[in-house]
């Protein structure tokens, strides 16, 4: 956990038993560990920023251990320290790591974990007889706060330790946790908070998050910054073709298949390698391909969120035991447990963000004084630029900026119901408490009132549900304005639905034997894991796809199981979508744009990429640092408009939807569009470039910011993206339950979906609080409207049109993607009539 370091100061401020323990291990406490003990002793909250391997967790607990050791003689019962981590595996692991020093120092301190896996009887016992230190998750904290005895349970609480705070704070889970902290501050006013975080661009946001905020102004926690670890070694892999000197880099695609032999060589040359990918399907693909190359039968494993818990645990155990040479994994292993012996981290594709890259690099070599080693594997030419930009950022230790978020209203609704479950609450008092949580500082009393009304009876203008209200006036005395949960059923409902993580509807994948008649409807089959329902929806029986490291043949559905057999074919028929799950960060995008503009930075690039840029400069122009390059050229029977905003696929998709509407209105007859991480291509029957020159459609107007007004509204009305977001908000806010009809597909049950609810609500009450929550989510998430807005502002007056006689080198990658991505909406209508066209003769014969 700790190693001797020259910068450690004297252990003078530690009690003798601690000083002796450090000495016995041959360690000296580090400066930041002592700083935290000092701040803790003074009852002060602090944010600790430290790299991996700096003894961060021990630092977080030291003040509590010192305090508990001190109090041991005359000790009062009650929970002393609460530790909250984003992962339950981490809670379990940290407990194990903390038990060692506690045992070695002979301290009588009880440490327990409480997660979704903790058996019911132990949970009940924990509430009666709490341990000194409890390790848990944000969801469990919310649950604990919802019990009527919460006030008693937390009354002696002296400290909360928040681990991996950078990963938690800026999310809906972070909102839920912030509200829980505000509650804790009321129940235990002397409470001290310790945040543990990796390096972040704006530590003040986290310092603010830790502290109850005053009415006006702001309060920041103390901050302790540990010295950074060694500068990492990062390479960008651009391998030559087999038997040739020539470096080959694909124009498009996301699989990086060309580089896998070189990745395999890297696995052979190292002890243990973590191979990070961005999506589950990419993990499957890479795993499959590596095994195809695996002539040495090296133990290479697969780890992602859709595999069964048992399969994942097996991999984790093997990893901990040091028996694996490589694990192909998704962001499920971004955080968490120390693996110890990882000596190389490989990132397939571009890392998408400077901070994510640093986090992943930190997974290799948890020793501070030795550099971590990482290898980036770009899958295409644009990704080479992105990887170089990310490498430069990581070497500087530069981080992505955090988008400051407003606390989500659906999460607030859940919290309000939780408060009512614990005890009657006074709305005015609760409003004050909620606003002390940093994400909810800007919440208005009016909106808070709407949320309470929503929790109670749905918050509709039409008041027909009064007698079904979930909150009732307490009215125990004159002037008692408090509200309470209306019935035990309401409390039960809250407990079943707590949390902010909404999984996409999943189906269990079961493998049955091929040819064994009646695989469907029959029981059993080997359970391989879970897969998104929308993916299975796209399959027809007989289609083959990759999952859990096998090429599987889809046989059909049986209730909530997807029945599959082992396929004999080596190539899956349904290519999975390899596009990134995370959008390119704003910070990294700016760095990539800068690379285009500064030729002197091209020396680091491999020859094919350099040549590609040179030809682009000759045939067209290069996108500048500040301006937006728009190219127009004919191809086939169409005219293409390609622009290069570098704002990520989500923002480009939104921009594409809006631009096509405008082009349509202007008479350019747009036929379709495609968005990549870097570019957007739209094809039309008329030439937008010519229309610009004839002043029929000035590009400045086409890209004007007012597209985010009416055009956005009109599009949203039809967008299926918003419906998906609505479903999540409806579940988190408690409007619909997690196991709502609509997910169940069994038997004769007539089901209906949240889409129907969305349609009705949008028609009758477009300003409803839940639709606002949905819109806010979509604006920052799936639609990335905020980023489109920023971009439109940035390029105002800086649009550079280049009319060409044919496709430019820079446009090739995005054009190669055409046909691989589908667009919904109006296109669905056209497809539906197509389903009829070839059948119309048959259909009319019926009549």
């Amino acid at each position: 956990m700790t190693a001797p370091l020259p910068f450690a100061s004297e252990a003078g401020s530690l009690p003798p038993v601690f000083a002796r323990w450090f000495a016995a291990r041959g360690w000296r406490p580090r400066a930041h560990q002592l700083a935290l003990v000092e701040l803790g002793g003074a009852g002060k909250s602090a944010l600790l920023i430290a790299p991996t391997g700096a003894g961060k967790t021990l630092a977080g607990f030291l003040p509590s251990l010192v305090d508990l050791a001190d109090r041991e003689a005359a000790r009062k019962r009650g929970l002393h320290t609460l530790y909250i981590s984003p992962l339950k595996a981490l809670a379990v692991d940290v407990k194990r790591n903390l038990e060692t020093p506690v045992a070695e120092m002979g301290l009588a301190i009880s440490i327990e974990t409480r997660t979704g896996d903790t058996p019911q009887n132990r949970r009940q016992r924990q509430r009666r007889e709490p341990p000194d230190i409890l390790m848990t998750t944000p969801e469990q904290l919310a649950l604990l706060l919802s019990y009527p005895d919460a006030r008693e349970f937390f009354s002696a609480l002296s400290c909360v330790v928040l681990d991996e705070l950078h990963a938690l704070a800026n999310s809906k889970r972070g909102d839920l946790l912030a509200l829980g902290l505000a509650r804790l501050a009321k129940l235990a006013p002397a409470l001290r908070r310790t945040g543990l975080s990796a390096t972040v661009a704006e530590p003040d946001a986290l310092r603010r998050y830790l502290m109850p905020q005053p009415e006006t102004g702001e309060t920041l926690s103390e901050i302790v910054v540990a010295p950074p670890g060694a500068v990492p070694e990062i390479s960008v892999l651009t391998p030559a073709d087999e038997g040739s000197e020539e470096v080959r880099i694909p124009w498009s695609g996301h699989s990086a298949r060309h580089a896998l032999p070189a990745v395999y060589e890297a696995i052979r040359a190292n002890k243990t390698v973590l191979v990070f990918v961005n999506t589950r399907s990419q993990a499957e693909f890479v795993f499959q391909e590596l095994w195809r190359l695996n002539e040495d039968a090296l133990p290479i494993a697969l780890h992602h969120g859709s595999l069964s818990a048992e399969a994942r645990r097996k991999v984790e155990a093997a990893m901990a035991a040091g028996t694996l040479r490589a694990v192909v994994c998704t962001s499920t292993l971004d955080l968490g447990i120390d693996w110890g012996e990882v000596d190389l981290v490989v990132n397939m594709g571009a890392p998408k963000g400077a901070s994510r890259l640093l986090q992943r690099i930190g997974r290799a070599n948890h020793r501070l004084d030795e550099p971590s080693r990482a290898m980036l594997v770009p899958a295409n030419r644009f990704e080479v630029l992105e990887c170089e930009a990310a490498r430069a950022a990581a070497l500087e230790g530069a981080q992505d900026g955090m988008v400051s978020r407003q606390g989500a209203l659906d999460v607030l609704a859940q919290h309000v119901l939780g408060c009512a479950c614990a005890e009657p609450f006074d709305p005015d008092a609760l409003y004050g408490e909620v606003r002390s949580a940093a994400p909810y500082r800007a919440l208005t009393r009016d909106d808070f009132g709407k949320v309470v009304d929503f929790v109670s009876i749905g918050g509709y203008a039409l008041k027909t549900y009064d007698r079904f209200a979930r909150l009732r006036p307490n009215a125990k005395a004159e002037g008692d304005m408090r509200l309470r949960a209306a019935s035990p059923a309401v409390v039960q409902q809250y407990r079943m639905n707590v949390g902010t993580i909404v999984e996409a509807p999943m189906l269990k994948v079961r493998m049955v034997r091929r040819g064994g008649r009646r695989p469907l409807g029959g029981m059993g089959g080997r359970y391989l894991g879970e897969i998104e329902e929308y993916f299975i929806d796209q399959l027809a029986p007989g289609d083959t796809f990759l999952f859990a490291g096998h090429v599987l043949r889809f046989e059909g559905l049986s209730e909530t199981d997807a029945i599959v057999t082992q396929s004999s074919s080596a190539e899956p028929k349904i290519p999975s979508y390899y596009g990134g799950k995370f959008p390119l960060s704003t910070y990294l995008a700016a760095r990539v744009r800068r690379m285009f503009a500064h030729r002197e930075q091209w020396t680091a690039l491999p020859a094919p990429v350099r040549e590609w840029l040179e030809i682009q400069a000759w045939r067209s122009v290069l996108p500048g640092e500040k301006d937006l390059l728009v190219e127009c050229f004919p191809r086939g029977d169409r005219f293409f408009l390609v622009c290069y905003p570098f704002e990520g696929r989500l923002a480009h998709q939104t921009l594409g939807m809006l631009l096509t509407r405008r082009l349509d209105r202007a008479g350019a007859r747009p036929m379709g569009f495609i968005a990549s991480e870097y570019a957007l291509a739209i094809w039309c029957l008329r030439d937008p470039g010519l229309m610009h020159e004839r002043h029929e459609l000035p590009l400045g107007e086409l890209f004007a910011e007012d597209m985010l007004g009416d055009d956005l509204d009109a599009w949203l009305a039809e967008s299926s993206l918003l419906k998906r977001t609505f479903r999540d908000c409806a579940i988190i806010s408690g409007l619909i339950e997690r196991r709502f009809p609509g997910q169940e597909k069994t038997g004769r049950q007539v089901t209906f979906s949240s889409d129907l609810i969305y349609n009705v609500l949008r028609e009758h009450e477009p300003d409803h609080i839940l639709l606002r929550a949905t819109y806010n989510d979509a604006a920052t998430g799936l639609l990335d409207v905020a980023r489109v807005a920023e971009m439109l502002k940035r390029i105002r007056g800086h649009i550079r049109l280049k009319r060409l006689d044919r496709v430019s080198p820079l446009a090739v990658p995005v054009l190669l993607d055409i046909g691989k991505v589908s667009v919904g909406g109006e296109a669905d209508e056209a497809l539906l009539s197509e389903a009829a066209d070839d059948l119309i003769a048959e259909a009319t014969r019926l009549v």
Partner: protein
Amino acid sequence: MQRAIDGGIVRPVAHPSLAVCGVAFDLLPEGAAWLAEERLLVVADLHFEKGSAFAARGVALPPYDTRTTIARLEALVARLKPQTLVALGDSFHDGEAEARMDAEDAARIARLSRALDWVWIAGNHDPEPPQGFGGVVMAELRLGPLIFRHEPRSAPATGEISGHLHPCAAVRVRGRRLRRRCFASDGTRMIMPAFGAYAGGLNVLDAAYDPLLPGLGFHAWMMGARTVVPVAAHRLEGD
């Protein structure tokens, strides 16, 4: 006449016609069937007050399903001016629906039902539809070769027009899966889609349809935004 914009050209939409026992219905994209000669409009499974039924169980769905359904009916009635409207049962989600209904919504239904000959067919959700809305209640309605009832009977049920099952269908076109409410018919009978705003759907390939439409000799007339599209059963996908 409805018009649709298709490739910039505005053109009239012809609603497809489906004959059951030789009687030709126009199938409307709203999910209703229209017998022009008789000026008779048929809708199924309105499920008024399904939202408030959930609210009573602690799930406060938006209380606007009833008025959404009414507004769609009003629009159809205004456009087609039917003489008779047949609601094929399960018009009310449960026995308490009338009591829970907003007064204004109730008044709109009453106004609508008094403006024409309204037939409430009894359904399993509403074996005794409330009396307060006008119209007549019937278990079945016979009209020439046709018989209108709520719950479809095992084949052969020649001339039967029914609801109850909320049929929907899924088809894959160029790799994309489309799932819509639908009319299901083999030419001898027709099962109508649910009309209610909160009514879900049961795939026509579900076993529940086996005794009603045996084999794959039927079509699903899938509801598009502007027209209804017939798709042969062998082209369809299950859920």
